């Protein structure tokens, strides 16, 4: 096999080579460390780009979403809102392993209905693997105790418990932006495993802020081993870095 050029390696890393050609290249790399290193660098550039540009929720998108919803058909009707909310609940139900795109889209449609999901400082920014990328939420999950209530961004934590794999998990919510979720800790990062809009009453006035969305509670039920941590256990786990 002649020395593959950069275009071939690029096509390989972007999934644009035929399966046969990709297999030949991978076989050649097993016997050629220089080729393997070039292929690794090519893959890394793809991964680094994707990670440097995570999908982020911008509050201004909620206004644009309303503009889109209003186009042609008038403002969205209450029953349409209800059916979209049902769709969000379905997509976010803990039993369904939803692909990231659907997860992000569902969370985003929630933003359309219930006000901005997030702002850039205190909001919800997740990487494609659902780990928390937003400094605000990360800090709250790392440090905040349930007894301290909401921080200045409106973010608070609720229940803290260990799941069946021994990971610490915490429910969280943004009263200001109207969403709540569940995140579990591993290797220094929090992975969001459930996310839902806070319940709203018929007149769209938010109910008591302490209510954890039903979909999030269902996710807690599914994950929890034993009982939730009391205030002392919560503080102890925090001080130990959630290990």
């Amino acid at each position, binding site marked *: 096999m002649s020395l593959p050029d950069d275009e071939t390696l690029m096509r390989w890393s972007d999934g644009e080579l035929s399966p046969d050609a990709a297999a030949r290249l991978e076989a050649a790399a097993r016997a050629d460390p220089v080729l393997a290193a070039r292929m690794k660098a090519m893959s890394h550039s793809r991964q680094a780009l994707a990670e*440097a540009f995570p999908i982020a929720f911008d509050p201004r998108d909620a206004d*644009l979403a309303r503009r889109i919803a209003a186009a042609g*058909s008038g403002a969205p009707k209450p029953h349409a809102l209800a059916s979209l909310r049902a769709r969000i609940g379905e997509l976010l139900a803990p039993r369904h392993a939803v692909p990231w795109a659907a997860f992000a889209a569902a969370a985003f449609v929630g933003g359309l209905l219930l006000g901005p999901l997030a702002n850039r400082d205190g909001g919800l920014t997740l990487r494609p693997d659902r780990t928390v990328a937003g*400094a605000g939420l*990360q800090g709250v999950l790392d440090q905040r105790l349930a007894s301290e209530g909401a921080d200045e961004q409106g973010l608070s934590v609720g229940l803290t418990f260990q799941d069946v794999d021994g990971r610490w998990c915490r429910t969280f919510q943004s009263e200001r932006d109207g969403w709540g979720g569940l995140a579990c800790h591993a290797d220094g990062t929090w992975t969001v495993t459930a996310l839902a809009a806070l319940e709203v009453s018929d007149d769209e006035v938010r109910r008591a802020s302490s209510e954890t969305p039903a979909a999030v509670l269902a996710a807690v039920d599914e994950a929890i081993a034993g009982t939730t941590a009391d205030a002392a256990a919560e503080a102890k786990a925090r001080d130990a870095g959630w290990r």
Partner: protein
Amino acid sequence: MDEFQTGLVELLPRLRRFAKVLRPADADAQDLVQQTVERALASRSGFRPGTRLDSWTFTLMRRIAIDEGRKAQRWGRVLTSDEEGAARAPDPAQAGEALRADGLAVRDALQALPDDQRHAVALVLIEGLSYAEAAQVLGVPSGTLTSRLVRGRQSLIETLAAQGVTG
């Protein structure tokens, strides 16, 4: 909302992300997203159901950016240092010093590429379009897209290696 509207709403975060590649200053990117949404709503009869809405909308956005770029040139508008600073500032949404530094280095490396390479790289590596779809969005033959992509990719790899951003 119908399927088209829902699809467009779901695309908004990606439209904003691509807009920032085309127009790094935040206010310019916001203008571009707004104009693209308006254009998409006005010309939705041109969208064929069953085809990719993201490619179609990115194409609209690229055309608007080109038109706006020509207008800006006519008015002699230049990027001010403030705007440039804002565009290059670290994204506060990214947690962790190391990650923030790496993310900034990668975003800088992308911004340093010539326009045509940057657009090709963003569509394929960030937005996940195939080579054929990216070529269609940019309105270039697939061979041209591929060579832009190779050159952009080579520069990125060299820049990131020089800055010690490793996988």
